[in-house]
Every structure is written in C-alpha cells, then in structure tokens.
C-alpha cells in the first residue's frame, strides 16, 4: 500500500500535498491557487485510482504552506480534498478542506443582472449545499451551482 502510494507521486521534503481532488478539477485547483505562476516546484498526478472518487488527482508543492483563506478557495471546487503538511519528508499535519458556511469575495455570482456584476461590490454567498457545493447570493438571492462557480 505504502509502496504503491510512493510510486504514484514522488515524495517531497517540505511543503504541502493536496490529495483527493476529483480528477476533472485538477486544473481548476491549479488555477485557483495560482500554481501556474508559482516559483515553487510543483508536481502533480492525475487520473490516479481512488476508492472514493474513482479517479483522483494529487498536487505536491514544495516549500509552500497555505493560509486558511486559500484553502477556502479550494473547497469551492474540491470540497473533499485533503491537505498533508510535510516537514522533513513526514506528514506533520493533516487538514481536511471543509466547505465554509459563507463565501466572501472569492466567487462570482452567475446572474448577469446581479448588482455584484454591475458595481464593484464584494460578493457574498451563503453555502446552501456542500456536495455539490451550491451558493446563494446574498444580494440577488439567485443560486450559483457548482458547475457555474467562477473564482475571482
């Protein structure tokens, strides 16, 4: 079991491993976290076997430890992702991404007639369902579903 895991994506010395990302959202997670512009060494594996998700993706980022706010962003598209904090090749902390109750200033309301798309208003949503994640706009009261979530 352990051997197999190591074969899937090679180990890092210090940094963060994000596991249990649904395979189809790998590139969205990369985008949201800005990893495409990151100077850190980033390795990822996609379409790995997972008992839970069918196909999953893993991202390993060396020398990077995320703030809670950044983790919140991940939760919008990969609500069941797990973060392993690695120090000296060992997992020193595990964080489970949890859906927030509220989402402020991260996502865009999908209603083009919403005030947040007309004036510079910070978006605010209530999370009314967490799998799949579904947002209700505090302003126009319209639903933005998982498929339409666009990160600002």
């Amino acid at each position: 079991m352990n051997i197999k895991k190591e074969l899937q994506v090679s180990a890092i010395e210090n940094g963060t491993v994000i596991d249990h990302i649904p395979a189809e959202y790998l590139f969205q997670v990369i985008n949201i976290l800005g990893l495409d512009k990151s100077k850190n060494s980033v390795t990822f594996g996609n379409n790995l076997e997972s008992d839970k998700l069918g196909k999953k993706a893993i991202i390993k980022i060396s020398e990077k430890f995320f703030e809670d706010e950044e983790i919140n962003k991940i939760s919008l598209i990969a609500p069941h992702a797990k973060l392993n904090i690695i120090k000296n090749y060992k997992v020193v902390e595990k964080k489970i991404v949890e859906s927030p109750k509220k989402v402020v200033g991260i996502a865009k309301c999908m209603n083009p007639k919403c005030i947040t798309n007309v004036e510079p208003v910070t978006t605010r949503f209530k999370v009314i369902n967490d799998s799949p994640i579904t947002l209700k706009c505090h302003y126009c009261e319209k639903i933005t579903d998982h498929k339409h979530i666009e990160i600002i």
Partner: protein
Amino acid sequence: MDNKSLVSIDDYTKEEILEVLDRAAKFEENPNCNLLEGKVVASLFFEPSTRTRLSFETAISRMGGKIVGFTDSSSSSVTKGETLKDTTKMVSNYCDLIVMRHPIEGSARYASEVSDVPVINAGDGANQHPTQTMLDLYSIYKTQGTLENLNIFMVGDLKYGRTVHSLLMAMSHFNPTFHFIAPPELEIPRGYKILMDKNKISYHEHTDFDDIINQADILYMTRVQRERFADPLEYEKVKNVYILKNDMLKNTKDNLRILHPLPRVNEIAVDVDTNPKAYYFEQALNGVYARQAIIAKALDL
C-alpha cells in the same frame, strides 16, 4: 447597515408579518395621521413604476411626510454614471427613509448596507417586491379573517412570477395547502418544491384549470406573458387556457376571493369584475395601508 430595512419578505418573521398586518388594519380605519410630520422620505425610482410609486406616495402623504426623489433615472445623476453606492450615500444624508425601485437584482440589499437610513425595497428587478407581498397577505388576512390553514390556488406563470414566489414563502408560516395550476413550461421551480417538502407544506400541481378551484379560499391569478416562451406556438397553445371566466365561479366557496397583482391583460375575463368574489381592485387599495404600516415599522413609529 440597517436592520430596519425591508429588502426581502424573508426579513420579516412570522410575528413581524402579523404585527404589520394589524398595523395596516389600524391605518385602514384611520388613514390620515401626523406620524411622518417633519420627516423626509426619498422615493428613488431608477425605473418607472407608476402604480407602486403612487401607492407609496399616497401612503407617505397620508402620514404627513414630505417626499423627495425622482420617478425614473433619466432625470437624475444616475444617467451621468453615478454609482448606486454614491447616490444612496448622498440621499441618505438628506432623508429619514429611502423607498427604492431599481432594475438590478440585489440593488436594494446593497443600498441598505451603504445607507445610514432604512431602505424599503419597492422592487429590485426580478428578485423581490416585499411590499407587494405584504399587501397580498393583508388582502388574504382581511378577506379570510386569518392566514392559517387556507387553500391557496396560484394560476398562470408560476415559474417567473416573483409575486407568486414571495407569497409562497410568506404563506409558508401559516400551514397552507397550495394548488398550482400552470402549463408545464411555467410550473413552480423545483427549488420551491424542495423547500415546501422540507417544511412539510402540502401542495398539488395541476395543468387543467377546472372545477378543482371549488376548493379554493384564495385564487391568485397571474399573467402568462408571451416573452416567457421560446416557441411562439407553445404560447398560442396555452394563452387562452388559464383565463378565469365568471361561469367557472358558480360552485366555488362563498369565502373565495380572487387576487391579481395587476395590471391584468386577459387572464381574468371582464365579466368577473362584478362578481363579489373579485377582489383585485380593493387589493390594490390595501397596498396603501400595508405600506403605511411598513413605513411606520421601518422608522419605529
């Protein structure tokens, strides 16, 4: 930020709804008073809505208040590109209360957050129009003597009609039985059905507009609008199906009252107007009393 604002019907609890309805009844007995003496109400209509504006202005005038504002945005600084935030901030310095109609959804909530005085939403696009809902509730309360345990029938465009959705939400406090009569294209959205299931509210859906209405206490009619249909043939098929005619009322209950948010097009035949069960014109007048009560509550008067 001001929690005295009324932006969405959900801002009122069941108790607050009843409190405002009782207050509306007092205003109906005694419409003229001086409660707003020395107060200035800003009436900001970023899009025209003569009916709603006149109702508000009558309410304010009967309470002795002064009105400032504009009746559509073409005559205001809004056309010069001023943001809603700036307009609201500026106006809230001048007045004690803002009544606002705006075509953009969520604008009223946003205005209530940047304003120093309470904001009453007089319609924000397709989103909310809570004073209409309160006048609907007052009409039901007045004609039935209660809001509890009623058979509420809603007919026509149940998909897009915001008055239908807000009334449904508000009535959900009062153990109603809903009957929805609509073509499949305009049926009540799934989200509301999930909500009713969750709140254990019984509802029935029908496509035929027939003697099922004999069970009704309230018949809430709405317009079926051509522009809601992608296929004009579909509209032609249903446009005459959901018309209420006087002979359909023969075996209905004595306490039945017919409501309509107005203006109507052809969905209620003119021969219904003289039937004592027709209530839509009085309903509109109730709007003045309901708005007086809402204003009084917003200003803690």
